[in-house]
Protein backbone atom coordinates (compact mmCIF):
# COMPACT_ATOMS: atom_id res chain seq x y z
CA UNK A 1 0.00 0.00 0.00
CA UNK A 2 1.32 3.47 -0.88
CA UNK A 3 1.96 5.69 2.08
CA UNK A 4 -0.45 8.58 2.52
CA UNK A 5 2.43 10.88 3.42
CA UNK A 6 6.12 10.37 3.06
CA UNK A 7 8.95 12.72 3.98
CA UNK A 8 12.40 11.87 2.74
CA UNK A 9 15.32 13.64 4.38
CA UNK A 10 13.37 16.89 4.62
CA UNK A 11 15.36 19.81 6.02
CA UNK A 12 14.38 23.39 6.66
CA UNK A 13 16.41 26.18 8.26
CA UNK A 14 15.34 29.72 9.12
CA UNK A 15 18.51 31.76 9.00
CA UNK A 16 20.89 29.94 11.29
CA UNK A 17 18.15 28.08 13.16
CA UNK A 18 17.66 24.56 11.89
CA UNK A 19 13.95 23.88 12.29
CA UNK A 20 13.96 20.48 10.64
CA UNK A 21 17.05 18.34 10.20
CA UNK A 22 16.87 15.54 7.60
CA UNK A 23 13.58 14.13 8.80
CA UNK A 24 12.16 11.01 7.18
CA UNK A 25 8.69 9.86 8.01
CA UNK A 26 6.06 7.52 6.58
CA UNK A 27 2.39 7.80 7.48
CA UNK A 28 -0.02 5.07 6.39
CA UNK A 29 -3.48 5.81 4.93
CA UNK A 30 -6.17 6.03 7.60
CA UNK A 31 -3.68 6.50 10.38
CA UNK A 32 -4.18 8.93 13.27
CA UNK A 33 -0.69 10.30 13.54
CA UNK A 34 0.66 12.76 16.11
CA UNK A 35 3.66 15.05 15.83
CA UNK A 36 4.61 15.66 19.44
CA UNK A 37 7.29 17.93 20.81
CA UNK A 38 8.05 21.09 22.74
CA UNK A 39 7.84 24.44 20.95
CA UNK A 40 10.62 24.94 18.44
CA UNK A 41 11.16 21.21 18.01
CA UNK A 42 10.19 21.21 14.33
CA UNK A 43 6.75 19.62 14.54
CA UNK A 44 4.88 22.63 13.13
CA UNK A 45 7.46 23.12 10.36
CA UNK A 46 6.90 19.48 9.46
CA UNK A 47 3.15 20.09 9.22
CA UNK A 48 3.64 23.22 7.13
CA UNK A 49 5.80 21.27 4.69
CA UNK A 50 3.07 18.67 4.29
CA UNK A 51 0.42 21.37 3.78
CA UNK A 52 2.64 23.20 1.30
CA UNK A 53 2.87 26.53 3.16
CA UNK A 54 6.60 26.09 3.34
CA UNK A 55 9.20 24.56 1.08
CA UNK A 56 11.99 22.27 2.32
CA UNK A 57 15.56 23.41 1.70
CA UNK A 58 16.33 19.84 0.73
CA UNK A 59 14.52 16.52 0.66
CA UNK A 60 11.21 15.45 -0.85
CA UNK A 61 7.59 15.20 0.24
CA UNK A 62 5.27 12.60 -1.24
CA UNK A 63 1.51 12.41 -0.96
CA UNK A 64 -0.01 9.12 -2.10
CA UNK A 65 3.32 8.25 -3.66
CA UNK A 66 3.42 11.44 -5.72
CA UNK A 67 6.20 13.98 -5.33
CA UNK A 68 4.50 17.21 -4.21
CA UNK A 69 7.60 19.06 -3.00
CA UNK A 70 7.04 21.84 -5.55
CA UNK A 71 3.24 21.66 -5.66
CA UNK A 72 1.48 24.71 -4.15
CA UNK A 73 -1.03 24.16 -1.30
CA UNK A 74 -4.06 24.74 -3.55
CA UNK A 75 -3.13 21.74 -5.69
CA UNK A 76 -2.59 19.32 -2.79
CA UNK A 77 -5.36 17.05 -1.62
CA UNK A 78 -4.66 18.00 1.98
CA UNK A 79 -6.63 20.32 4.25
CA UNK A 80 -5.70 22.03 7.46
CA UNK A 81 -7.38 23.02 10.70
CA UNK A 82 -5.42 26.04 11.90
CA UNK A 83 -4.40 26.76 15.43
CA UNK A 84 -6.24 30.10 15.41
CA UNK A 85 -9.00 28.48 13.27
CA UNK A 86 -8.43 31.14 10.55
CA UNK A 87 -12.16 31.51 9.84
CA UNK A 88 -12.93 34.26 7.33
CA UNK A 89 -14.50 37.04 9.44
CA UNK A 90 -16.41 38.58 6.52
CA UNK A 91 -18.27 35.37 5.64
CA UNK A 92 -21.05 33.54 7.42
CA UNK A 93 -20.39 30.15 8.96
CA UNK A 94 -22.02 28.42 5.98
CA UNK A 95 -19.97 30.50 3.52
CA UNK A 96 -16.82 29.63 5.42
CA UNK A 97 -17.60 25.92 5.24
CA UNK A 98 -18.54 26.11 1.56
CA UNK A 99 -15.43 28.11 0.62
CA UNK A 100 -13.49 25.08 -0.62
CA UNK A 101 -16.34 24.26 -2.99
CA UNK A 102 -16.80 27.85 -4.11
CA UNK A 103 -13.19 28.21 -5.26
CA UNK A 104 -13.57 24.93 -7.13
CA UNK A 105 -16.60 26.41 -8.88
CA UNK A 106 -19.19 23.97 -7.51
CA UNK A 107 -22.77 25.20 -8.11
CA UNK A 108 -24.49 27.23 -5.38
CA UNK A 109 -27.18 24.63 -4.66
CA UNK A 110 -24.74 21.77 -4.17
CA UNK A 111 -22.50 24.05 -2.14
CA UNK A 112 -25.28 24.92 0.28
CA UNK A 113 -26.34 21.30 0.62
CA UNK A 114 -22.88 19.97 1.33
CA UNK A 115 -22.05 22.82 3.72
CA UNK A 116 -25.22 21.97 5.65
CA UNK A 117 -24.19 18.28 5.71
CA UNK A 118 -20.75 19.17 7.03
CA UNK A 119 -22.17 21.46 9.70
CA UNK A 120 -24.47 18.67 10.81
CA UNK A 121 -21.49 16.32 10.96
CA UNK A 122 -19.92 18.62 13.54
CA UNK A 123 -23.31 19.19 15.22
CA UNK A 124 -23.65 22.85 14.22
CA UNK A 125 -26.55 22.39 11.79
CA UNK A 126 -28.36 25.58 12.80
CA UNK A 127 -25.36 27.88 12.91
CA UNK A 128 -24.95 28.44 9.16
CA UNK A 129 -26.16 32.05 9.19
CA UNK A 130 -23.99 33.23 12.05
CA UNK A 131 -20.74 35.08 11.74
CA UNK A 132 -17.54 33.50 13.11
CA UNK A 133 -17.32 36.38 15.60
CA UNK A 134 -20.52 35.18 17.27
CA UNK A 135 -19.21 31.69 18.03
CA UNK A 136 -17.45 30.28 21.08
CA UNK A 137 -13.98 28.76 20.81
CA UNK A 138 -15.31 25.21 20.64
CA UNK A 139 -17.83 26.14 17.95
CA UNK A 140 -15.17 27.91 15.87
CA UNK A 141 -13.07 24.78 16.15
CA UNK A 142 -15.89 22.70 14.72
CA UNK A 143 -16.55 25.13 11.89
CA UNK A 144 -12.84 24.99 11.02
CA UNK A 145 -13.10 21.21 11.03
CA UNK A 146 -16.19 21.21 8.79
CA UNK A 147 -14.54 23.67 6.41
CA UNK A 148 -11.40 21.54 6.16
CA UNK A 149 -13.37 18.34 5.53
CA UNK A 150 -15.73 19.62 2.84
CA UNK A 151 -13.22 19.01 0.02
CA UNK A 152 -13.03 15.34 1.13
CA UNK A 153 -9.25 15.44 1.54
CA UNK A 154 -7.13 12.30 1.81
CA UNK A 155 -5.28 13.87 4.69
CA UNK A 156 -6.43 16.26 7.39
CA UNK A 157 -3.76 18.27 9.15
CA UNK A 158 -4.52 19.71 12.57
CA UNK A 159 -2.22 22.33 14.08
CA UNK A 160 -2.59 22.30 17.88
CA UNK A 161 -6.32 21.92 17.32
CA UNK A 162 -7.32 21.85 20.96
CA UNK A 163 -4.73 24.27 22.30
CA UNK A 164 -7.09 27.19 22.82
CA UNK A 165 -9.91 25.24 24.47
CA UNK A 166 -10.47 24.77 28.18
CA UNK A 167 -9.85 21.40 29.79
CA UNK A 168 -13.40 20.04 29.76
CA UNK A 169 -14.02 21.01 26.14
CA UNK A 170 -10.64 19.63 25.17
CA UNK A 171 -11.49 16.21 26.52
CA UNK A 172 -14.83 16.28 24.72
CA UNK A 173 -13.20 17.28 21.44
CA UNK A 174 -10.53 14.59 21.79
CA UNK A 175 -13.18 11.89 21.81
CA UNK A 176 -15.07 13.63 19.01
CA UNK A 177 -12.00 13.95 16.77
CA UNK A 178 -11.10 10.33 17.34
CA UNK A 179 -14.64 9.21 16.49
CA UNK A 180 -14.74 11.42 13.41
CA UNK A 181 -11.45 10.05 12.16
CA UNK A 182 -12.66 6.47 12.56
CA UNK A 183 -15.93 7.20 10.78
CA UNK A 184 -14.34 9.05 7.85
CA UNK A 185 -11.35 6.73 7.60
CA UNK A 186 -9.04 9.49 6.39
CA UNK A 187 -5.51 10.16 7.57
CA UNK A 188 -5.27 12.63 10.46
CA UNK A 189 -1.96 14.25 11.27
CA UNK A 190 -2.01 16.46 14.29
CA UNK A 191 0.57 18.62 15.95
CA UNK A 192 0.56 18.94 19.71
CA UNK A 193 2.83 19.74 22.61
CA UNK A 194 0.49 17.91 24.99
CA UNK A 195 1.75 14.37 25.46
CA UNK A 196 -1.52 13.25 27.09
CA UNK A 197 -3.41 14.31 23.96
CA UNK A 198 -0.97 12.48 21.70
CA UNK A 199 -1.10 9.30 23.79
CA UNK A 200 -4.88 9.18 24.03
CA UNK A 201 -5.71 9.94 20.40
CA UNK A 202 -2.95 8.82 18.08
CA UNK A 203 -2.22 5.42 16.54
CA UNK A 204 1.42 6.40 16.27
CA UNK A 205 3.40 9.32 17.63
CA UNK A 206 6.59 10.95 16.36
CA UNK A 207 8.40 12.72 19.19
CA UNK A 208 10.34 15.73 17.91
CA UNK A 209 13.29 17.38 19.55
CA UNK A 210 15.63 19.97 18.03
CA UNK A 211 14.46 19.36 14.48
CA UNK A 212 14.78 15.59 14.56
CA UNK A 213 12.48 12.69 15.31
CA UNK A 214 13.65 11.36 18.63
CA UNK A 215 11.41 8.31 18.55
CA UNK A 216 8.50 7.07 16.46
CA UNK A 217 6.28 4.52 18.08
CA UNK A 218 2.81 3.61 19.25
CA UNK A 219 1.66 5.46 22.39
CA UNK A 220 2.16 2.30 24.46
CA UNK A 221 5.58 1.73 22.95
CA UNK A 222 6.61 5.31 23.71
CA UNK A 223 5.48 5.10 27.27
CA UNK A 224 6.80 1.65 28.11
CA UNK A 225 9.95 1.63 25.98
CA UNK A 226 11.28 5.19 25.64
CA UNK A 227 14.61 5.06 23.90
CA UNK A 228 16.15 8.30 25.14
CA UNK A 229 16.09 10.35 28.31
CA UNK A 230 14.24 13.10 26.42
CA UNK A 231 11.39 10.82 25.37
CA UNK A 232 11.24 9.19 28.80
CA UNK A 233 10.72 12.51 30.55
CA UNK A 234 8.67 14.27 27.83
CA UNK A 235 6.13 11.47 27.44
CA UNK A 236 4.73 11.01 30.89
CA UNK A 237 7.12 11.58 33.74
CA UNK A 238 10.14 9.45 34.45
CA UNK A 239 13.12 9.21 36.72
CA UNK A 240 16.22 9.16 34.57
CA UNK A 241 19.20 7.73 36.41
CA UNK A 242 22.66 7.77 34.89
CA UNK A 243 26.34 7.57 35.69
CA UNK A 244 27.59 6.48 39.13
CA UNK A 245 24.04 6.37 40.60
CA UNK A 246 23.00 3.93 37.91
CA UNK A 247 26.05 1.83 38.59
CA UNK A 248 25.40 1.81 42.32
CA UNK A 249 21.80 0.68 41.86
CA UNK A 250 22.12 -1.78 39.00
CA UNK A 251 25.80 -2.58 38.74
CA UNK A 252 25.97 -1.11 35.21
CA UNK A 253 26.80 2.41 34.11
CA UNK A 254 24.15 2.61 31.37
CA UNK A 255 21.43 5.17 32.02
CA UNK A 256 17.93 3.89 32.68
CA UNK A 257 14.46 5.28 33.25
CA UNK A 258 11.94 4.19 35.82
CA UNK A 259 8.33 5.43 35.91
CA UNK A 260 7.25 6.92 39.27
CA UNK A 261 4.25 4.60 39.53
CA UNK A 262 6.45 1.51 39.28
CA UNK A 263 8.43 2.37 42.40
CA UNK A 264 7.09 1.12 45.71
CA UNK A 265 7.60 2.84 49.05
CA UNK A 266 8.05 0.43 51.95
CA UNK A 267 9.17 0.81 55.54
CA UNK A 268 12.89 1.32 55.87
CA UNK A 269 13.40 -1.82 57.95
CA UNK A 270 11.29 -4.00 55.68
CA UNK A 271 12.94 -6.46 53.33
CA UNK A 272 12.54 -5.75 49.59
CA UNK A 273 11.07 -8.65 47.58
CA UNK A 274 13.73 -10.89 46.16
CA UNK A 275 15.03 -9.86 42.76
CA UNK A 276 13.93 -6.27 43.27
CA UNK A 277 16.20 -3.27 43.10
CA UNK A 278 16.11 -1.45 46.36
CA UNK A 279 17.58 1.56 48.10
CA UNK A 280 16.83 3.83 51.03
CA UNK A 281 16.28 7.55 51.09
CA UNK A 282 14.65 10.49 52.81
CA UNK A 283 11.05 11.43 52.02
CA UNK A 284 11.30 15.09 50.98
CA UNK A 285 7.75 16.09 50.07
CA UNK A 286 4.35 14.64 49.35
CA UNK A 287 1.79 16.11 46.93
CA UNK A 288 -1.72 14.78 47.16
CA UNK A 289 -3.56 14.52 43.79
CA UNK A 290 -6.75 12.74 44.80
CA UNK A 291 -6.51 9.47 42.95
CA UNK A 292 -2.80 9.33 43.58
CA UNK A 293 -0.12 11.12 45.47
CA UNK A 294 3.38 11.90 44.39
CA UNK A 295 6.40 12.20 46.56
CA UNK A 296 10.09 12.84 46.13
CA UNK A 297 12.65 10.68 47.85
CA UNK A 298 16.29 11.75 48.05
CA UNK A 299 18.49 8.70 47.69
CA UNK A 300 21.82 10.50 47.70
CA UNK A 301 23.08 14.05 47.39
CA UNK A 302 22.70 14.11 43.58
CA UNK A 303 19.55 12.11 43.07
CA UNK A 304 15.91 12.35 44.05
CA UNK A 305 13.40 9.90 42.69
CA UNK A 306 9.75 10.77 42.06
CA UNK A 307 7.31 8.14 43.26
CA UNK A 308 3.59 7.96 42.49
CA UNK A 309 1.26 5.92 44.68
CA UNK A 310 -2.32 5.07 43.90
CA UNK A 311 -4.43 6.30 46.79
CA UNK A 312 -6.96 3.88 48.17
CA UNK A 313 -9.20 4.44 51.13
CA UNK A 314 -7.79 1.43 52.91
CA UNK A 315 -4.15 2.04 51.96
CA UNK A 316 -1.52 2.78 54.53
CA UNK A 317 -0.61 6.46 54.53
CA UNK A 318 2.95 7.57 53.85
CA UNK A 319 5.18 8.24 56.82
CA UNK A 320 5.71 11.92 57.69
CA UNK A 321 8.08 14.11 55.70
CA UNK A 322 11.73 13.68 56.55
CA UNK A 323 11.36 10.00 57.42
CA UNK A 324 13.70 7.39 56.07
CA UNK A 325 11.95 5.05 53.64
CA UNK A 326 12.93 2.16 51.45
CA UNK A 327 12.20 2.19 47.71
CA UNK A 328 11.90 -0.97 45.69
CA UNK A 329 11.12 -1.78 42.06
CA UNK A 330 11.28 -4.78 39.81
CA UNK A 331 14.34 -5.07 37.62
CA UNK A 332 12.21 -5.41 34.47
CA UNK A 333 10.48 -2.07 35.20
CA UNK A 334 13.66 -0.25 34.32
CA UNK A 335 14.05 0.86 30.70
CA UNK A 336 17.61 1.10 29.46
CA UNK A 337 18.24 4.36 27.60
CA UNK A 338 20.61 5.31 24.84
CA UNK A 339 23.44 7.32 26.30
CA UNK A 340 23.55 10.93 25.25
Amino acid sequence: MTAAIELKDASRAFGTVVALDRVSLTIAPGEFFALLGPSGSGKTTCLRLIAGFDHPDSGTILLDGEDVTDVPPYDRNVNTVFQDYALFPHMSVAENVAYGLRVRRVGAAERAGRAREMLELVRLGDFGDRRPGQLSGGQKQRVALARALINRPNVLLLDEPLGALDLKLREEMQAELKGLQQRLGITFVFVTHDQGEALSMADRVAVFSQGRIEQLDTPRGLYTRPRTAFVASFVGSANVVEGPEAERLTGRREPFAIRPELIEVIAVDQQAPSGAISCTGTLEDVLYHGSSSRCHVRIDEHTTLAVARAESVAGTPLPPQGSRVRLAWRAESMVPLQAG
Partner: protein
Amino acid sequence: MLRSLSTFFHGRNAFYIALLLAPPLLWLGTVYLGSLFTLLAQSFYAIDEFTAKVVPELTLKTYRQLFTQPANVDIVVRTVLMAIAVTIASAVIAFPIANYMARYAGPKMKAFFYVGVMLPMWTSYLVKVYAWRLILAKQGIASWAIASLGLERGLDSLLATPVVGGPSLASSYIGMFIVFVYMWLPFMILPLSAALERVPASLLQASADLGARPGQTFRNVVVPLALPGLAAGSIFTFSLTLGDYIIPSVVGAPGYFVGMMVYQQQGTAGNMPLAAAFSVVPIVLIALYLSLAKRLGAFDAL
Protein backbone atom coordinates in the same frame (compact mmCIF):
# COMPACT_ATOMS: atom_id res chain seq x y z
CA MET B 1 -5.06 66.83 48.61
CA LEU B 2 -4.43 64.92 45.38
CA ARG B 3 -5.36 61.72 47.13
CA SER B 4 -8.69 63.08 48.28
CA LEU B 5 -9.31 64.36 44.77
CA SER B 6 -8.68 60.93 43.25
CA THR B 7 -10.82 59.34 45.95
CA PHE B 8 -13.57 61.76 45.00
CA PHE B 9 -13.34 60.78 41.33
CA HIS B 10 -13.21 57.09 42.10
CA GLY B 11 -16.61 55.63 41.36
CA ARG B 12 -17.84 58.87 39.76
CA ASN B 13 -16.89 57.76 36.29
CA ALA B 14 -19.46 59.76 34.37
CA PHE B 15 -18.43 62.99 36.05
CA TYR B 16 -14.76 62.26 35.44
CA ILE B 17 -15.32 61.53 31.76
CA ALA B 18 -17.47 64.65 31.36
CA LEU B 19 -14.72 66.77 32.88
CA LEU B 20 -12.10 65.29 30.58
CA LEU B 21 -14.20 65.60 27.47
CA ALA B 22 -15.65 69.06 28.01
CA PRO B 23 -12.78 71.12 26.48
CA PRO B 24 -12.32 69.02 23.32
CA LEU B 25 -16.08 68.73 22.88
CA LEU B 26 -16.51 72.49 23.18
CA TRP B 27 -13.79 72.98 20.59
CA LEU B 28 -15.20 70.37 18.25
CA GLY B 29 -18.76 71.62 18.77
CA THR B 30 -18.15 75.31 18.16
CA VAL B 31 -15.20 75.43 15.84
CA TYR B 32 -15.96 72.43 13.63
CA LEU B 33 -19.66 71.66 13.76
CA GLY B 34 -20.77 75.20 14.62
CA SER B 35 -19.05 76.74 11.64
CA LEU B 36 -20.25 73.90 9.44
CA PHE B 37 -23.86 74.56 10.39
CA THR B 38 -23.38 78.29 9.89
CA LEU B 39 -22.14 77.46 6.42
CA LEU B 40 -25.14 75.24 5.79
CA ALA B 41 -27.46 77.99 7.00
CA GLN B 42 -25.72 80.53 4.73
CA SER B 43 -26.52 78.40 1.69
CA PHE B 44 -30.20 79.01 2.36
CA TYR B 45 -29.82 82.80 2.72
CA ALA B 46 -31.00 85.16 0.04
CA ILE B 47 -28.93 87.81 -1.69
CA ASP B 48 -30.21 91.27 -2.36
CA GLU B 49 -30.21 91.80 -6.12
CA PHE B 50 -29.39 95.51 -5.95
CA THR B 51 -26.93 95.86 -3.13
CA ALA B 52 -25.47 92.32 -3.54
CA LYS B 53 -25.70 92.00 0.23
CA VAL B 54 -26.57 88.76 1.98
CA VAL B 55 -29.87 88.94 3.82
CA PRO B 56 -30.85 86.26 6.33
CA GLU B 57 -34.06 85.27 4.59
CA LEU B 58 -34.48 81.57 3.97
CA THR B 59 -34.77 80.64 0.31
CA LEU B 60 -34.01 77.70 -1.98
CA LYS B 61 -33.11 80.08 -4.79
CA THR B 62 -29.36 79.41 -4.49
CA TYR B 63 -29.83 75.68 -4.83
CA ARG B 64 -32.13 76.19 -7.79
CA GLN B 65 -29.37 78.28 -9.33
CA LEU B 66 -26.82 75.54 -8.56
CA PHE B 67 -28.79 72.73 -10.13
CA THR B 68 -30.42 74.49 -13.07
CA GLN B 69 -27.68 76.68 -14.50
CA PRO B 70 -25.82 74.43 -16.96
CA ALA B 71 -22.46 76.03 -16.11
CA ASN B 72 -22.85 75.16 -12.43
CA VAL B 73 -24.03 71.62 -13.17
CA ASP B 74 -21.00 71.20 -15.45
CA ILE B 75 -18.69 72.23 -12.63
CA VAL B 76 -20.20 69.68 -10.26
CA VAL B 77 -20.13 66.87 -12.83
CA ARG B 78 -16.57 67.69 -13.89
CA THR B 79 -15.35 67.72 -10.30
CA VAL B 80 -17.11 64.49 -9.37
CA LEU B 81 -15.81 62.66 -12.45
CA MET B 82 -12.28 63.81 -11.69
CA ALA B 83 -12.63 62.74 -8.05
CA ILE B 84 -13.86 59.30 -9.09
CA ALA B 85 -11.04 58.85 -11.61
CA VAL B 86 -8.42 59.99 -9.10
CA THR B 87 -9.82 57.67 -6.42
CA ILE B 88 -9.85 54.62 -8.67
CA ALA B 89 -6.35 55.30 -9.98
CA SER B 90 -5.01 55.87 -6.46
CA ALA B 91 -6.54 52.62 -5.25
CA VAL B 92 -5.08 50.67 -8.17
CA ILE B 93 -1.61 52.13 -7.69
CA ALA B 94 -1.72 51.97 -3.89
CA PHE B 95 -2.83 48.35 -3.53
CA PRO B 96 0.38 46.59 -4.59
CA ILE B 97 2.51 49.07 -2.63
CA ALA B 98 0.36 48.74 0.51
CA ASN B 99 0.26 44.97 0.17
CA TYR B 100 4.02 44.80 -0.12
CA MET B 101 4.45 47.07 2.90
CA ALA B 102 1.99 45.09 5.00
CA ARG B 103 2.95 41.55 4.09
CA TYR B 104 6.37 41.18 2.55
CA ALA B 105 8.60 44.07 3.64
CA GLY B 106 10.99 43.46 6.52
CA PRO B 107 11.08 46.01 9.36
CA LYS B 108 13.78 48.13 7.67
CA MET B 109 12.13 48.05 4.28
CA LYS B 110 8.81 48.92 5.87
CA ALA B 111 10.29 51.96 7.62
CA PHE B 112 11.87 53.02 4.33
CA PHE B 113 8.52 52.73 2.56
CA TYR B 114 6.66 54.67 5.25
CA VAL B 115 9.17 57.51 5.06
CA GLY B 116 9.15 57.32 1.27
CA VAL B 117 5.38 57.59 1.17
CA MET B 118 5.17 60.43 3.68
CA LEU B 119 8.26 62.43 2.77
CA PRO B 120 6.62 64.23 -0.18
CA MET B 121 3.82 65.32 2.16
CA TRP B 122 6.31 67.26 4.27
CA THR B 123 7.22 69.66 1.46
CA SER B 124 5.20 72.66 0.40
CA TYR B 125 2.06 71.83 -1.47
CA LEU B 126 2.31 74.91 -3.69
CA VAL B 127 5.91 74.17 -4.64
CA LYS B 128 4.93 70.68 -5.72
CA VAL B 129 2.01 71.89 -7.80
CA TYR B 130 4.11 74.49 -9.60
CA ALA B 131 6.90 71.96 -10.09
CA TRP B 132 4.40 69.66 -11.74
CA ARG B 133 3.31 72.45 -14.06
CA LEU B 134 6.92 72.74 -15.24
CA ILE B 135 7.35 68.98 -15.47
CA LEU B 136 4.23 68.64 -17.60
CA ALA B 137 4.77 71.76 -19.73
CA LYS B 138 5.05 71.56 -23.50
CA GLN B 139 8.86 71.66 -23.45
CA GLY B 140 9.01 70.12 -20.01
CA ILE B 141 10.84 67.10 -18.68
CA ALA B 142 7.85 64.77 -19.11
CA SER B 143 7.45 65.36 -22.82
CA TRP B 144 11.24 65.27 -23.23
CA ALA B 145 11.39 61.86 -21.48
CA ILE B 146 8.49 60.55 -23.56
CA ALA B 147 10.15 61.82 -26.74
CA SER B 148 13.50 60.22 -25.89
CA LEU B 149 11.67 56.92 -25.39
CA GLY B 150 10.25 57.39 -28.88
CA LEU B 151 6.69 57.55 -27.61
CA GLU B 152 5.78 61.03 -28.94
CA ARG B 153 3.06 59.60 -31.13
CA GLY B 154 1.42 58.01 -28.13
CA LEU B 155 1.49 61.28 -26.21
CA ASP B 156 0.18 63.23 -29.19
CA SER B 157 -2.74 60.90 -29.76
CA LEU B 158 -3.45 60.93 -26.02
CA LEU B 159 -3.51 64.74 -26.02
CA ALA B 160 -5.66 64.67 -29.15
CA THR B 161 -8.39 62.85 -27.19
CA PRO B 162 -11.39 65.15 -27.00
CA VAL B 163 -12.33 66.66 -23.58
CA VAL B 164 -9.44 65.17 -21.54
CA GLY B 165 -6.74 66.19 -24.00
CA GLY B 166 -5.26 69.62 -24.70
CA PRO B 167 -2.27 71.44 -26.19
CA SER B 168 0.10 70.01 -23.57
CA LEU B 169 -0.03 67.77 -20.51
CA ALA B 170 0.12 70.84 -18.26
CA SER B 171 -2.98 72.29 -19.82
CA SER B 172 -5.10 69.14 -20.08
CA TYR B 173 -7.29 67.19 -17.69
CA ILE B 174 -4.85 64.29 -18.06
CA GLY B 175 -2.13 66.42 -16.50
CA MET B 176 -4.44 67.58 -13.73
CA PHE B 177 -5.37 63.96 -13.08
CA ILE B 178 -1.69 62.99 -12.81
CA VAL B 179 -1.03 65.75 -10.28
CA PHE B 180 -4.11 64.86 -8.22
CA VAL B 181 -3.10 61.20 -8.08
CA TYR B 182 0.45 62.18 -7.13
CA MET B 183 -0.81 64.43 -4.33
CA TRP B 184 -3.34 62.13 -2.74
CA LEU B 185 -1.67 58.73 -3.21
CA PRO B 186 -0.15 58.67 0.32
CA PHE B 187 -3.63 59.17 1.78
CA MET B 188 -4.67 55.96 0.06
CA ILE B 189 -1.53 53.91 0.77
CA LEU B 190 -1.43 54.50 4.52
CA PRO B 191 -4.96 53.38 5.53
CA LEU B 192 -4.82 50.57 3.00
CA SER B 193 -1.58 49.13 4.34
CA ALA B 194 -2.89 49.51 7.90
CA ALA B 195 -5.97 47.47 6.92
CA LEU B 196 -3.92 44.83 5.12
CA GLU B 197 -1.60 44.51 8.07
CA ARG B 198 -4.54 43.45 10.21
CA VAL B 199 -5.33 40.48 7.94
CA PRO B 200 -3.70 37.44 9.58
CA ALA B 201 -1.44 35.42 7.30
CA SER B 202 -3.28 32.27 8.38
CA LEU B 203 -6.41 33.49 6.53
CA LEU B 204 -4.48 33.59 3.27
CA GLN B 205 -3.00 30.18 3.97
CA ALA B 206 -6.43 28.81 4.82
CA SER B 207 -7.74 30.09 1.50
CA ALA B 208 -4.89 28.47 -0.43
CA ASP B 209 -5.28 25.32 1.63
CA LEU B 210 -8.92 25.05 0.58
CA GLY B 211 -7.93 25.18 -3.07
CA ALA B 212 -8.03 28.89 -3.94
CA ARG B 213 -5.49 30.05 -6.47
CA PRO B 214 -3.66 33.31 -5.63
CA GLY B 215 -6.11 35.35 -7.74
CA GLN B 216 -9.09 33.80 -5.97
CA THR B 217 -7.56 34.41 -2.55
CA PHE B 218 -7.00 38.02 -3.56
CA ARG B 219 -10.59 38.51 -4.68
CA ASN B 220 -12.32 36.48 -1.98
CA VAL B 221 -10.22 37.24 1.07
CA VAL B 222 -7.71 40.07 0.63
CA VAL B 223 -9.91 42.65 -1.07
CA PRO B 224 -12.98 42.17 1.17
CA LEU B 225 -10.86 42.43 4.29
CA ALA B 226 -9.05 45.49 2.93
CA LEU B 227 -12.36 47.25 2.23
CA PRO B 228 -12.37 49.34 5.42
CA GLY B 229 -8.92 50.67 4.48
CA LEU B 230 -10.01 51.16 0.89
CA ALA B 231 -13.08 53.05 2.10
CA ALA B 232 -11.02 55.26 4.42
CA GLY B 233 -8.44 55.96 1.72
CA SER B 234 -11.03 56.69 -0.92
CA ILE B 235 -12.81 59.13 1.38
CA PHE B 236 -9.54 61.05 1.59
CA THR B 237 -8.76 61.00 -2.13
CA PHE B 238 -12.37 61.67 -3.10
CA SER B 239 -13.01 64.55 -0.72
CA LEU B 240 -9.58 66.12 -1.18
CA THR B 241 -10.14 66.17 -4.94
CA LEU B 242 -13.66 67.54 -4.53
CA GLY B 243 -12.49 70.42 -2.37
CA ASP B 244 -9.17 71.35 -3.94
CA TYR B 245 -8.93 74.66 -5.80
CA ILE B 246 -5.18 75.09 -6.25
CA ILE B 247 -4.36 72.16 -8.54
CA PRO B 248 -7.18 72.93 -11.02
CA SER B 249 -6.15 76.58 -11.15
CA VAL B 250 -2.44 75.87 -11.72
CA VAL B 251 -2.47 72.72 -13.86
CA GLY B 252 -4.95 71.60 -16.49
CA ALA B 253 -7.69 72.81 -18.77
CA PRO B 254 -9.43 76.09 -17.94
CA GLY B 255 -12.76 74.56 -16.78
CA TYR B 256 -13.91 75.44 -13.26
CA PHE B 257 -13.95 73.01 -10.33
CA VAL B 258 -16.11 73.09 -7.19
CA GLY B 259 -13.25 74.27 -5.00
CA MET B 260 -12.37 77.11 -7.36
CA MET B 261 -16.02 78.13 -7.50
CA VAL B 262 -16.26 78.29 -3.71
CA TYR B 263 -13.09 80.35 -3.59
CA GLN B 264 -14.29 82.74 -6.24
CA GLN B 265 -17.89 83.12 -5.06
CA GLN B 266 -17.03 83.90 -1.47
CA GLY B 267 -14.04 86.02 -2.45
CA THR B 268 -14.23 88.23 -5.51
CA ALA B 269 -17.91 87.66 -6.31
CA GLY B 270 -19.04 88.04 -2.70
CA ASN B 271 -21.84 85.53 -3.23
CA MET B 272 -21.62 83.74 0.10
CA PRO B 273 -24.84 81.72 -0.35
CA LEU B 274 -23.69 80.22 -3.66
CA ALA B 275 -20.23 79.47 -2.24
CA ALA B 276 -21.91 77.75 0.71
CA ALA B 277 -24.22 75.80 -1.58
CA PHE B 278 -21.23 74.65 -3.64
CA SER B 279 -19.39 73.47 -0.53
CA VAL B 280 -22.45 71.48 0.55
CA VAL B 281 -22.03 69.36 -2.60
CA PRO B 282 -18.93 67.43 -1.40
CA ILE B 283 -20.48 66.91 2.05
CA VAL B 284 -23.60 65.35 0.56
CA LEU B 285 -21.58 63.25 -1.91
CA ILE B 286 -19.31 61.88 0.83
CA ALA B 287 -22.32 61.08 3.01
CA LEU B 288 -23.90 59.19 0.11
CA TYR B 289 -20.64 57.40 -0.57
CA LEU B 290 -20.26 56.35 3.07
CA SER B 291 -23.77 54.97 3.29
CA LEU B 292 -23.19 53.08 0.05
CA ALA B 293 -19.91 51.66 1.37
CA LYS B 294 -21.65 50.62 4.58
CA ARG B 295 -24.42 48.92 2.64
CA LEU B 296 -21.84 47.05 0.56
CA GLY B 297 -20.37 45.73 3.80
CA ALA B 298 -17.11 47.69 3.77
CA PHE B 299 -17.21 48.03 7.55
CA ASP B 300 -18.53 44.55 8.45
CA ALA B 301 -15.10 43.16 9.19
CA LEU B 302 -14.23 46.04 11.55
